[in-house]
């Protein structure tokens, strides 16, 4: 629906409630032009904030996915270091904000390029549109982030549209653990991994609640664990294993997993029920304890110069 349609719908809403009960006093109705402008302003503020949150998710996940390669066997995929927006992916209310804030056009637009990433070294710039990768037509963020490298390839061939010109660039294949995380708009503290959708989905509220990158790295490492260990559903032993794997992944990425434990304590405060049960997950206190054991184990291995790898991984 267009912006005009949105305004019309708001007008209809206004007509509906002028007939609803009031305390009897005469009131001036809401100024609809001001309301439409306010809705648009809030959508833009929200969009800009969510883009910043997604960028942080990509930054931290890039670190974790690259560093955890030794744990991921052959479950590897290209890590590009790109943040992409596409008109095909966005809720319609985010289109105008995306046009204003990021000059969105048709197609997969490069909204940011991480410093030092494979994409940055290949010369991809903010404002480019990705037309195709290795000959596959690209329309959405998903198309870009889940593109796999052919066996033996050392780079991916990007066709880019820049200022009306087509440019071909070779982006070096930098492997990282499966998959790229995506941000989903939701108020719950949650994230999930989907092998079928080739994605890790982290909810916007959980990214906000992860106050430090150490905490966010634990979340991403946990979801990588689910994928790598072949978990096909959620149950307590799977969740415990994913936590254990995630602790190693975060440690390899140079994050401090002990600091990451803070998120469980806050979770318990935010949702007292997580102290005794949280669906198929272990309770918050048992996760805190298991994590501190894993942190001790990692510290001992570091001191002994041993390989940082969860026990039982090579079985």
């Amino acid at each position, binding site marked *: *629906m267009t912006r005009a349609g*949105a305004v019309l*719908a708001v007008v209809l*809403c206004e007509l*509906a*409630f002028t007939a*609803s*009960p009031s*305390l009897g006093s005469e*009131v*001036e109705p*809401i100024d609809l032009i001001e*309301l439409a402008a*306010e*809705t648009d302003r*809030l959508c833009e*503020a*929200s*969009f800009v904030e*969510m883009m910043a949150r997604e960028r942080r998710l990509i930054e931290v996940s890039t670190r974790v996915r690259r560093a955890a390669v030794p744990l991921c066997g052959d479950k590897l995929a290209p890590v590009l270091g790109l943040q992409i927006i596409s008109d095909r992916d966005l*809720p*319609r*209310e*985010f289109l105008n904000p995306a046009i204003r804030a990021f000059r969105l056009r048709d197609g997969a637009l490069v909204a940011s390029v991480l410093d030092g990433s494979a994409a940055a070294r290949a010369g991809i710039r903010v404002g480019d549109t990705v037309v195709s990768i290795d000959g596959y037509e690209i329309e959405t963020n998903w198309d870009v982030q889940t593109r796999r490298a052919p066996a033996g390839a050392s780079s991916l061939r990007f066709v880019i549209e820049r200022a009306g010109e087509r440019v071909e660039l070779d982006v070096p294949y930098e492997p990282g653990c499966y998959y790229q995380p995506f941000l989903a*708009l939701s*108020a719950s503290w949650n994230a999930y991994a989907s092998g079928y959708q080739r994605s890790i989905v982290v909810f*916007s*509220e959980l990214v*906000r609640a992860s106050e430090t990158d150490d905490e966010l790295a634990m979340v991403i490492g946990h979801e990588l664990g689910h994928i790598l*260990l*072949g*978990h*096909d559903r959620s149950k307590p032993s*799977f969740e*415990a*294993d994913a*936590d*254990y794997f995630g602790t190693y992944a975060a440690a390899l990425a140079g994050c401090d997993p002990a600091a990451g434990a803070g998120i469980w*304590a806050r979770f*318990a*405060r*935010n949702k*007292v*029920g997580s*102290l*005794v*049960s949280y669906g198929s997950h272990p*309770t918050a*206190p*048992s996760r805190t*304890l*298991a994590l501190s*054991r*894993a942190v001790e*184990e990692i510290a001992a291995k570091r001191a002994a110069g041993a390989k940082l790898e*969860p*026990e*039982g*991984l090579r*079985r």
Partner: protein
Amino acid sequence: MRRRALLIALALAVCSCARELDSPPVERAEIRRETDAAAEDAFGALFTVYARVLAISERLRLANLELCADHSGGYFGWMVFAGRDFGSQEMRALAASVVQVGEVPVVVALSPEGPATRAGLQIGDEIMSVGSKRTRTHVQVRRAEQGQSSERATVRFRRAGEEREVAVAPARACRYEAMPVYAGLGASPTRDGHVGVSIALVEEATDNELAFTLAHSFALQRLGVDVYSAVVPFPEPQTTNLAVEMCERAGFDLDDVERLLELEATEQPWGLFLPAKGGGERVGELPKRIVALRAALARRAAK
């Protein structure tokens, strides 16, 4: 048919190729101790939130008797909490062992100058009955409390295992009661007749912001809005105007409260999105509230 289902189940069991890791073990006793410590911390934080919600909502409820008209009733100035208010058996057991909140509702917050405090009730007292009504949940306590119209109400309670009785002289207040809940960032009247305000919001909000949020839900109750209708929008600007008036009569300053409304909207942008085809969820309530608030404050400034 059954055989086929069995075969499929067998195939799934064989195919499940999840790998298991050998994480260091954690003893049960240790988990128990850690749980108790975390629970004490979490319940402590929860009761602090209760006390704050009680203090802010009390100012609104006492100052607005005139606006609430027949929506008023007895008021003790307390908050109670019962094991039964928790959904799960485990939570009840935990609440009972850590903070001694059992099957009987327990006083978890008191207004310093309120009727319950003046009658000598204390935090931790277990409320057995109010007036002639036996009380087992916080909703029962609230109904009994609000139904008090006499000058003295007898409250039976237990303290340190000993049963006692005390006479409370109820004040009169608007019958809107606010209770902390877990979900999201916001507040809304609930089916139980109170207003649920999210803990995240209470922790985020200043006193003025919390007052406006609560007043808006109280105004919805005052106007008799069917908050469970999925399609009828809240009457605006009427609800906001009433909330502004309630806050002003209670001495809250609304000049900066727009910040919280903006945060609620930008953190939960789906509230700004038009419903999908055929969907009926409410939409755009927060921008309407912001525009109505600005207009109300501008009118006040012009006066």
